[in-house]
């Protein structure tokens, strides 16, 4: 059995250090002379005392207990786990990008401003929007920013609209962002094709509709073919159309949200533009808008003077205000820009084509063994249902856990919520046919195991550092840190 991994706090031994600080070359200040005792720390923080090798071995061992894209195939639907190019990591670490301050004089950061300005324009071109803000730190943050702009737009016209419509297949952040922007959420059912039910939509819209939030292709990997009609229904009711761009990897250079009729778009650069997900973040969620919403963009944006120099443009009286300190997750924007310049417009189109070919190929090969939730052509991802395996007592969760024994990161499971025993697979364009075939063969084998030897699947995984964990006790009797209580 693989032994438990100690916490860094458990490695501590008084007297060890892992830091190196300079001697003070200015007079030592006696704390008591400058700070009243009531403001001084009464008891030092008990941080562990370790030396440098402890730090290196500890985090190296932790990294070995983690699975990233560089370790293997990661078909996590809705997350676009494509290869994270190494050049992006190098450029983001250039001192001219990593060691600069947001409040330096503008003339001393012209290179950074040019990069942001170009990225704003390139993302506007890609999405078919008129202007882009780079401030939001992630997709959900972009959603909220977009909805706040939609709110400001309606308010500027003297309209009070209180509802945001989302399909039942939408991501949880959509309704949660609507709440944060002060809206009530109306959830509409998808139809038997997995698409927006036009009649349901017609019933839901009204003069209280602020917006419809939609992902296209949607979270089932299906393109909303009636998007122009959907847009017309919402616009006729006086609402706006919000595009959740988490699924943009399917459509780059092929179709644009702006041309579909959307008014506001966010992109997840940590998906589509290959920036690493960092074990949970950081991301970047730029938001693009059509011209009628430009006045409401968060301030500042980056603009250009006639003489070709760049500046922070704060002169935006109708702006919704600021949404993020400074100017967004700049280090992520540098990576995304590097990526986009690696491909250029034709390359990005090819990215989407290959992502879609890969997904359709996998769907076709898996269809005889797993029920395809919505047969037909898919885009960059597709959804299976593991419901057939329930007769053997095997659930989708068990299939996912069994995949761990074969060295794969499992697909997204139990999302979207409107498909029973959901398995959502997104291969991305950076995987080879051989990788896909191996994974498919493994899935087929697990389907057979489920039928012939269900216990094998139900008790998986076997080869991981821990086995299945007790999540119920974790939530009932929370132990959330090792330092108190």
């Amino acid at each position, binding site marked *: 059995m693989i032994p438990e991994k100690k*916490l*860094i706090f458990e490695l501590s031994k008084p007297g060890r250090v892992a*830091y190196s600080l300079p001697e*003070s*070359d200015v*007079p*030592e200040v006696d704390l008591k002379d*400058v*700070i*009243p005792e009531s403001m001084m*720390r*009464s008891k030092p*923080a008990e*941080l562990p*005392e*370790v030396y440098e090798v402890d730090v290196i071995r500890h985090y190296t061992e*932790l990294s070995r*207990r*983690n*699975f*990233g*894209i*560089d370790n293997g195939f990661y078909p996590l639907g809705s997350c676009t786990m494509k290869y994270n190019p190494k050049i992006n990591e190098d450029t*983001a670490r*250039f*001192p001219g*990008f990593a*060691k600069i301050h947001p409040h330096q004089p503008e003339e*001393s950061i012209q290179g*950074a401003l040019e990069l942001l300005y170009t990225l704003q324009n390139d993302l506007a*071109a890609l999405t078919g929007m008129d202007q882009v803000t780079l401030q939001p730190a992630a997709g959900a943050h972009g959603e909220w920013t977009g909805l706040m702009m939609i709110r400001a737009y309606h308010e500027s016209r003297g309209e009070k609209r209180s509802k945001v419509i989302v399909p039942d297949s939408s991501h949880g952040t959509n*309704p*949660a962002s609507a709440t944060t922007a002060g809206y009530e959420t109306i959830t509409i059912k998808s139809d038997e094709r997995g698409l927006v039910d036009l009649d349901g939509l017609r019933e839901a819209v009204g003069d209280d509709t602020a917006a419809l939030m939609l992902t296209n292709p949607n979270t089932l990997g299906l393109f909303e073919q009636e998007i*122009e009609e959907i847009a017309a229904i919402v616009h006729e009711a006086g609402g706006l159309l919000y595009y959740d761009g988490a699924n943009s990897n399917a459509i780059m250079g092929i*179709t644009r949200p702006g041309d579909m009729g959307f008014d506001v778009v966010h992109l997840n650069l940590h998906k589509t533009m290959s920036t690493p*997900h*960092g*074990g*949970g973040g*950081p991301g970047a969620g730029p938001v693009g808008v059509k011209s009628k919403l430009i006045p409401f963009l968060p301030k500042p944006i980056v603009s250009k003077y006639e003489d070709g120099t760049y500046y922070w443009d704060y002169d935006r009286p109708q702006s919704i205000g600021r*949404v*993020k*300190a400074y100017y967004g997750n700049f*280090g992520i924007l540098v990576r995304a820009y590097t990526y986009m*310049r*690696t491909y*250029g417009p*034709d390359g990005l189109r090819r990215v989407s084509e290959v992502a879609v070919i*890969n997904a359709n190929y996998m769907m*076709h090969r898996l269809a005889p063994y797993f029920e395809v939730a919505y047969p037909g052509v898919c885009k960059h991802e597709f959804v299976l249902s593991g419901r057939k395996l329930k007769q053997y007592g095997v659930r989708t969760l068990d299939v996912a856990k069994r995949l761990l024994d074969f060295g794969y990161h499992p697909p997204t499971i139990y999302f979207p919520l409107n498909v029973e025993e959901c398995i959502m697979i997104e291969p991305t*364009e950076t995987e*080879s*046919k051989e990788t896909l075939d191996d994974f498919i063969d493994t899935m087929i084998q697990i389907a057979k195991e489920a039928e012939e030897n269900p216990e094998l699947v139900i008790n998986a*995984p076997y080869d991981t550092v821990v*086995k*299945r964990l*007790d999540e119920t006790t974790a*939530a009932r009797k929370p132990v959330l840190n*090792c330092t*108190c209580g």
Partner: protein
Amino acid sequence: MKKHRYIPMTEQDQSDMLATIGAESVKDLFSDIPESIQYKGTLPMSEALSEAELLKHMSELAERNANFEQYPSFLGAGIYDHHIPVVINHMISRSEFYTAYTPYQPEISQGELQAIFEFQSYICELTDMKVANASMYDGATALAEAAALASGATRRKRIVVSKTVHPEAREILHTTAHGLNLEVVEVGISNGVTNLDELQTAINDETAAVLIQSPNFFGCIEDVRSIEPLVHEKKALLTLSVNPLSLGLLESPGKLGADIVVGDAQPLGIPAALGGPTCGFFAVTEKLMRRIPGRIVGQTTDTDGKRGFVLTLQAREQHIRREKATSNICSNQALLALCASIYMSTMGKSGIQEVAQLNLNKSHYAAQQFSKDSKLAFDAPFFNEFVVKLPEGSNVEEVNSKLIEKGYIGGFNLGKSYPELEGHMLLAVTERRTKDEIDGFIRELEDCI
């Protein structure tokens, strides 16, 4: 077909795969997209560059920025030039960490989960709070989330915030408050700290939270011991925004009676990078545990009884609760939380105190060197940042432009955010600044005014 180094599909692969699918061409796979909205032609975007060309282009852009290596920085205002121990970049460059998604599959994500659990432990230890989450976008958005939490917990709508709180954090608070229909009341300043009389008047029975930053935006340490009873007397929640590095020397927010503690972990080993990505932290009392926004990791055991870690208390989160979630946050700033954890592991119990003491030494030395007509604006105690009032008629922006020409990054122009502080400069002096740099900077500063 143009070949690309990240795309393995050959022409043969493509035709084999299309045959399996039963499609004649790639176009068939996009037949569900109406003709009328298909994009024809090439998008008007920046062109592709080869690896070598791209590196050259990126270096050229980078070289047009004045960086801290070449220009000693005296600029703070929330983003600081601290020393970053070299081990941090080595460890966060392990791609098992940085190329992973959120740890949804705990059996193969124990490394990240344990790292987050340790981060939560570090934040609790530093702040003396009971519960910390896995991170927020930054300190400023964390403050706005604190206001939202307080409003939910107290069922009140009034947020009282001191004007000594970071101006950008207050801007975000105002944006957020508009969405949540909260009332924001700003309290004035006296001698660089929150005006306590005004504060007391502002807090009433409708007040959900009082937001205080200490050290505040001017670097001054707030008298939280006097503020705390004013807040709790009205059953409002005391939210403190703190610089985590200052907690090496300053009293912990938990001991000062805070209900919610937020801040930005940038001083803990995170590059400035034009202000992002950094890492917000968020800690609360036990009572508020189930209202905290964002991801949380908890300890548990596996089927063999072995210790392990999982994402927990998820019934608060958007993927379960949708419109009823405590926050809309999904992706956070995990990799930067890892930076902060490795920083704290490296500094340890004595390092965090020593580095804080060095900041204190340097800033107090610098504050004493002004000879001519510039003087300290406030006499409240400060940590590593302070405000200088330049001689009458000085234009801080012009001064900063001249300083850049002399090779220094000057301080924050306070007039930009506080009209009454026109001609005032906020200076940060970290442990990275040497005596020579401080002396040289002040000489040049005094020369150019």
